C-alpha cells in the first residue's frame, strides 16, 4: 500500500451543510407559507363544509340544459372572434415594439428602455384590469374585450418576440452588416428567419391564451360568453351554466389541438 486511498474509499457527504444565512432564509420561507395559509382562513373544516354545497351545485348542473344551445353557440362564436381579433391586433403591434425592445437590435438605448417598460406594464397588469378600464373607456361589449386582449397580448408576445430575436445567432447578422446591409435588411433577412419558429409558437400560445382569457372578460362586461355564464350563475340556472362550461371546454380543447397541429406544420422549411 502506498498510502493513497482509492476513489471508493473517499468519503463524500451526501448533502452540503447549508450556510447560516441560507438556513435562516429557508426557515423564513416555510414560515411565510404557513402564515399565508393562516391569513387566508383556509381550514379543513371549511373545506369539508363546502363539499356538500359543491355536490348540490353539480347535481343541479346535470343534465345540462340544451334549449338555449343555439344562443350559447352564437355567443361562443362571438367570444372566439373577440379572441382572434384581439390576438391578431396584439401580435401586429407587439412585433415592432419587440424590435425596439430587443438588445442589440433596437436603434437607440432610450427607445429600448421605453419599449421594455411599456411591454412590462402591459404584461404585468392582468387582462381583467385592462378590460375594466376599456369598459369604462369604450363602454360595455366586445370592443372593450378586443382591446383588453390586444394589450395583454402585446405584453405577452412583445417580451417573447424580443427574447427570440436577441437569442438568434449573431453570425448571419454580422455577415450582412459587413456587406453594408441596412438595419431593415438585417432584421428581415438575418434575424426574423431565425426567430420565426419561436414567433409562430408564441403566436399560437397567444391565441390559446386569448381564447381562455376572453371567456373571463365577459364577467366584467367586456362581451362574449362570460356574460351568459355570469347571468346563468346569478339566476342559479346551473344546468344552463353547465352547457356553457362544456361548450367553453370544447372550444379551448379544439383551439389547443388545432394550435398544436399548426405549430408542427408551420415550423417547417422556409426557402
Amino acid at each position, binding site marked *: 500500500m502506498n498510502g493513497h486511498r482509492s476513489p471508493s474509499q473517499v468519503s463524500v457527504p451526501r448533502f452540503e451543510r447549508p450556510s447560516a444565512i441560507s438556513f435562516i432564509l429557508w426557515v423564513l420561507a416555510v414560515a411565510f407559507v404557513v402564515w399565508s395559509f393562516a391569513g387566508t382562513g383556509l381550514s379543513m373544516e371549511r373545506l369539508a363544509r363546502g363539499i356538500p354545497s359543491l355536490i348540490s351545485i353539480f347535481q343541479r348542473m346535470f343534465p345540462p340544459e340544451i334549449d338555449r344551445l343555439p344562443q350559447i353557440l352564437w355567443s361562443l362564436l362571438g367570444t372566439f372572434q373577440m379572441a382572434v381579433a384581439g390576438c391578431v391586433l396584439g401580435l401586429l403591434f407587439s412585433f415592432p415594439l419587440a424590435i425596439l425592445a430587443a438588445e442589440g437590435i433596437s436603434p437607440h438605448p432610450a427607445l429600448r428602455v421605453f419599449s421594455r417598460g411599456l411591454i412590462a406594464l402591459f404584461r404585468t397588469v392582468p387582462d381583467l384590469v385592462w378590460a375594466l378600464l376599456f369598459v369604462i373607456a369604450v363602454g360595455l361589449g366586445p370592443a372593450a374585450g378586443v382591446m383588453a386582449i390586444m394589450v395583454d397580448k402585446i405584453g405577452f408576445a412583445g417580451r417573447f418576440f424580443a427574447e427570440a430575436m436577441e437569442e438568434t*445567432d449573431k*453570425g*448571419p447578422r*454580422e*455577415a*450582412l*452588416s*459587413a*456587406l*453594408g*446591409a*441596412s438595419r*431593415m*435588411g438585417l432584421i*428581415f*433577412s*438575418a434575424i426574423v*428567419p*431565425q426567430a*420565426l*419558429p419561436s414567433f409562430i409558437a408564441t403566436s399560437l400560445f397567444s391565441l390559446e391564451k386569448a381564447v381562455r382569457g376572453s371567456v373571463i372578460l365577459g364577467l366584467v362586461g367586456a362581451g362574449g360568453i362570460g356574460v351568459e355564464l355570469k347571468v346563468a350563475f346569478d339566476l342559479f340556472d346551473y344546468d344552463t351554466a353547465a352547457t356553457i362550461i362544456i361548450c367553453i371546454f370544447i372550444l379551448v380543447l379544439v383551439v389547443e389541438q388545432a394550435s398544436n397541429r399548426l405549430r408542427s406544420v408551420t415550423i417547417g*422549411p*422556409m*426557402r
Partner: protein
Amino acid sequence: MVALIGANGTGKSTLLRCLVRLIEPTAGTVRALGLEVTTLDRAGLAAYRSRVGFVFQRHNLVPRLSALTNVVHGVQSRARGPRTWLQSLARREVREEAMACLDSVGLADVARQRADSLSGGQSQRVAIARMLMQRPELILADEPDASLDPRAGEEVMGLLNRLAKSQKLALVLISHHMEHAIQFSDRIVGLAGGRATLDVPSSTADPVALHHFFHDRSRRNERP
C-alpha cells in the same frame, strides 16, 4: 493576394475586422480602396463595406433559408427593400445573378436546399457566392479553411484564389495552414504582438522557416 499568418491572439482577425470596422479601431487609421475608413460616417461606411467582400471562418449563413436566398442577400450591398430578403421575392435579374454566383462556386444544384442541410465545405462555398453577389473590389477571408476537413479546406482556398485571379480582385486571407498560405497567395505577412514582423513573397517563402516563425511566436505568446 496576401496571406496573413501568425499564432492565435496576434491580431490577424482583429486586423481584418478593423478593415471593415466590425471592430472599431481604438487608435491609428485604416486606409483602403482610396478611403480613410476610420473617418467614414454611417452611410459612407455602408457604401465602403458594400465594396469589400468578407468571408468568415463560420460562413455565417442564415440556417433556415435556402442557399439561393442566402446568395440573394449579397445584393443588399447595393439594393434595399423586401425584394432583397427572400429569393422568392427577388427580381428576375437578381435571381439569375445569384444563380450564376452559385454556379461559379459549383453549387447550382443545391440552390433550393436549406443552408443548414449543407456540408461545411458547401456552406463556405455558398458564403463565397454571397460575397461574389456583392460584386466586391477587395476580398477579406478570415480563416475560410479553419472549420473544414483538409480536402474541403483546400478546395475553398483554391476557389477563392481562382475567383480573385479571374476577377482581378485583391485578396487578403488568414490561414493557419502554411501550405495554403504559400500555395494560394503572392505575399505572406506574419504578425506577432499586433505588428507585422515578416513580409516575404510566397514564391520564395520556405515552409520550414514559416513553421518556425509560427511556432516560435506561438510559444512567445504563451508566456505571461
